[in-house]
């Protein structure tokens, strides 16, 4: 099977295989993506983030169904944590989306973080591109349940939906530091529970400090009962239109591309640093440094020069 051709012809097996290869850092798959990159950019990429158990998967399922009703196709990437001890994982986000498994216009892929911090896996951006090339109108990325600093999703999405639940109270205080800033939309899910109004007020108050010209809407939602989902989708479209007016979308994507390039350079340099002959060199030098015959600053500077000039 020619994977590039298969992908362009909307063969799900090709898309699935390419994601596997990208996850394994396969050179040929990377070349394929680099060749097909010009076909990306058509999808509206939506990040779904929030604390563990907030209802990210349930809401993604409902949003996807709503989009299917108006004839849009949907790709979904759901990320769950990999155990740092065994390297294994149980990826269970799919369970909430069972009605979509056999829908020809939907593709769902689960990914383990495989040691990557930040709420996504290293290959998530690649997987998004693959689904974008395939031609999905919308791509959802469900992050791992976030706590304090998992903000990688901003680099990957056009629109970030921050899911909250009522009664987080102090948690909102704790979370807001780094994470609240990344929400383009706030969804208070499980609003069938007590405290939803107070949570809305708290979030609105925090947003009063926000000085951008986009004021994130705050919606109350009950994903399990499909309440507020249509309204959320309208706000998502509205955010897209906002981005598209006066080049904001390009600017956002430019920023994200900048980060992506730096990340790729960093990865590639690291890979070279850790190549076998360098490893042996580093081990040798470490001994000299330990004996105070050399200093670590000079050694690392020399190593970098060696790699760059190579």
């Amino acid at each position, binding site marked *: 099977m020619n994977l590039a051709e298969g992908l362009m012809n909307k063969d799900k*097996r090709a898309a699935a295989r390419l994601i596997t290869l990208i996850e394994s850092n396969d050179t040929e798959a990377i070349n394929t993506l680099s060749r097909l990159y010009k076909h990306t950019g058509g999808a509206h990429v939506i990040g779904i983030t929030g604390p563990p158990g907030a209802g990210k998967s349930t809401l993604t399922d409902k949003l996807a169904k709503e989009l299917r009703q108006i004839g849009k196709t949907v790709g979904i990437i759901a990320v769950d944590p990999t155990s740092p001890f065994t390297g294994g994982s149980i990826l269970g986000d799919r369970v909430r989306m069972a009605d979509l498994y056999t829908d020809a216009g939907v593709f769902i892929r689960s990914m383990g973080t495989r040691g990557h911090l930040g709420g996504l896996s290293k290959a998530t951006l690649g997987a998004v591109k693959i689904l974008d090339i395939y031609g999905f109108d919308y791509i959802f990325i469900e992050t791992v349940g976030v706590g304090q600093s998992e903000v990688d999703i901003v680099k990957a999405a056009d629109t970030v939906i921050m899911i909250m639940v009522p009664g987080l109270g102090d948690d909102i205080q704790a979370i807001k530091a780094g994470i609240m800033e990344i929400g383009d939309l706030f969804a208070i899910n499980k609003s069938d529970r007590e405290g939803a109004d107070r949570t809305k007020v708290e979030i609105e108050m925090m947003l009063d400090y926000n000085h951008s010209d986009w004021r994130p809407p705050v919606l109350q939602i009950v994903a399990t009962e499909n309440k507020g989902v249509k309204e959320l989708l309208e706000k998502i479209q509205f955010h897209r239109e906002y981005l598209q007016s006066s080049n904001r979308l390009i600017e956002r994507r430019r920023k994200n591309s900048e980060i992506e390039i730096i990340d790729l350079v960093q990865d590639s340099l690291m890979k070279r640093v850790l190549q076998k002959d360098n490893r042996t060199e580093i081990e040798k030098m470490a001994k000299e440094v330990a004996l105070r015959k050399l200093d670590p600053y000079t050694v690392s500077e020399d190593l970098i020069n060696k790699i760059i000039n190579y």
Partner: protein
Amino acid sequence: MTRPIRVLVAKPGLDGHDRGAKVIARALRDAGMEVIYTGLRQTPEQIVQSAIQEDVDVVALSILSGAHNHLLPKVVELLKNEKVYEEMLVIGGGVIPDEDIPGLKESGLAGIFTPGTPTQATIDFIKENLKREL
């Protein structure tokens, strides 16, 4: 670079006995595998579409309802129709009488694991019988 083995753990049919599936899912995770759990009451079509999109190495089916002779071969048949069977190892487990096992193997299930089998046996079987390279 090697990658983790990806396994779809699915429960075909209408019964709600999910303890065994969860025990297996955890055992495989602890053995370093990436386990995709699809939930209860899956049709063969749902299982096969999930297996394709998740590009798994193993399809692991747990069934305690008694409908194994119908549902398990059906999953294999659909995987063959979709031309992914050659790459995926299909195994089953649960309450399955011994006399049904030869027929199931005949139909394309590589292994059947009944109550009392240590989970390590399943882990070893998977590692030894993968159909494609990692």
